[in-house]
């Protein structure tokens, strides 16, 4: 087994009744990688994401993390072993302050209030929210809430960060600032898996891209390779009329 492979998806399949949401997907994620998974609406991206985070249990196949099959682990158990995630519809703890939100993550490996709050403050600083530490999460802007979710995940000391459409609903400037943040985290050595609908975002990361359509992996490569692939064009734009 390759030491560098941190996360490996093997023949992962998810059926909802007769619908094959994810069909026999396999790919590996290297340590320190930044992998984007894209696909049109209904391609099965969110299902795949939920299989990775433990929200769903696969019909068949395995999710292997550091050489161990974790397909049966619950979401909190995956968080405990190093999965940090954000939600497509952001789930910050609205009546707690930004700092307290990050603390909820920091408590996973720190027992005392003092340690957790100190570490949470460091993390907020890292994602650019230190000046908003005392503000209730419910009155943060959407892009700040996205950053806060990333902060909560980072405070878990996660080894893989899974981002579920963190750009959705953000304006151009906000998207750029989130891209910059994700790049920075990746440059610092974090393994990141991004699920995105937006093709522009994928181009911005300039790393490996996997394209899904109808629950299948249809392309795997650099953004240039993938975006010039006729199958991908077809999936996104439809078949060229004869």
């Amino acid at each position, binding site marked *: 087994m390759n030491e560098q492979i941190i996360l490996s998806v093997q023949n992962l399949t998810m059926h909802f009744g007769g619908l094959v949401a994810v069909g026999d997907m396999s790919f590996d994620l290297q340590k320190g990688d930044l992998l984007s998974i894209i696909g049109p609406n209904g391609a099965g991206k969110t299902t795949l994401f939920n299989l990775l985070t433990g929200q769903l249990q696969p019909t068949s196949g395995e999710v292997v993390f550091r050489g161990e099959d974790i397909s049966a682990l619950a979401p909190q158990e995956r968080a405990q072993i190093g999965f940090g995630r954000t*939600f497509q519809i952001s789930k910050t703890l609205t009546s707690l302050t930004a700092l307290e939100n990050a603390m909820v993550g920091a408590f996973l490996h720190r027992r005392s209030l003092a340690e957790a709050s100190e570490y949470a403050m460091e993390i907020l600083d890292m994602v650019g929210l230190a000046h908003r530490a005392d503000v209730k999460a419910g009155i943060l802007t959407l892009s700040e809430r996205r950053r806060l979710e990333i902060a909560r995940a980072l405070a878990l000391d996660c080894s893989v960060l899974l981002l579920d459409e963190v750009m959705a609903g953000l304006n151009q400037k906000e998207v750029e600032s989130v891209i910059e943040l994700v790049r920075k985290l990746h440059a610092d050595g974090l393994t990141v898996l991004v699920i995105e609908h937006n093709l522009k975002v994928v181009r911005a990361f300039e790393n490996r891209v996997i394209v899904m359509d109808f629950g299948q992996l249809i392309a795997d490569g650099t953004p240039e390779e993938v975006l010039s692939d006729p199958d991908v064009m077809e999936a996104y734009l439809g078949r060229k009329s004869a």
Partner: protein
Amino acid sequence: MSKIDQQEAGAPAAPGRSSPHVTRLRTELGRIAAIAAVFGAAITFWQGDPFILNIMAYTFLFGALASSWNIIGGFGGQFSLGHGVFFAIGGYTTANLYFHWQISPWLSLIPAMILAMLVAVLVSWPTFRLKGPFFAIATLALNEVALVLANYFDTLTGGPRGMMLPFNAGLANMVFTSRLPYAVLMLGFLIVCLVVGAMVLRSRLGYYLQAVHIDEDAARAAGIDVLRVKLSGMAVSAALTGIGGSLFAMYLRFVDPPTLLSIQDIGVKFLLIALIGGVGTLYGPLAGALLIIPLEFHLRATLGGMLPGANLLILGALLVIFSLFMRRGVVGAGQALWARYRRTKNE
């Protein structure tokens, strides 16, 4: 506070080492000491008035019980209507040990606490899988089952006729000739409940309970074992409630099913007091008790004779008013007023 104000005034953010605003346990203990001092002074002031002392004893006791309920009901957001069961377990444990074996109620607080905690964990194990109103209804049913059992098993409970506890005055028996020591006892219990509440709120468990309350999926994503956190909160809450039941039994020197398990006078009352005072806040339940219990005594004295049940009518109306206009209770409304005052002052 100042940070928020700066933000709103559009001042440049000042990140870095300025200390983040997290209330420490130390701060809360200082506040609780102040509360203890004020109430201690009140007891001293009215020490010759048994009527007032009785109201104070009830207020402190129910403030303590609502604070205990608040640990799981408020911080953790699990609206238990079954806390009467843990209250009754405490009451019956102490009553039985005192009645049959003359065991000092001070000692029987320990088994009362442990038993309440065990039963709480046992019944919560399945019911915590239910969410929101379904959990509340399940716990309500629990209370009703306990009422039937208490009426039926008369060797343990004295059945519907109840148990009269012998009057043997003395500190060891927790039986006193005047109301003054009872008021002090209940104040002591209140302080214990506030301190435990503060210890929970200003710790990992407190933040985990709040996270579970606000969003279970987000809590799981933060590595929180939701069921375990709920059970821990419930265990602490039920243990304190059990102690409250023991003290109540010794105060009345009488236990019977309606006294310990009445849904409107016990089970729902904890929650009602917490809701009116400010659910989920540390001092809200106490504020609620300070408002509700004296008011209830007053209503019972003035209206009770004319129109039986009128006091319940007014309490019900109060609850409706609070849930419509002051969702966060007395404490929440106070905080909002304070924030508004700060803002106008800074402009």
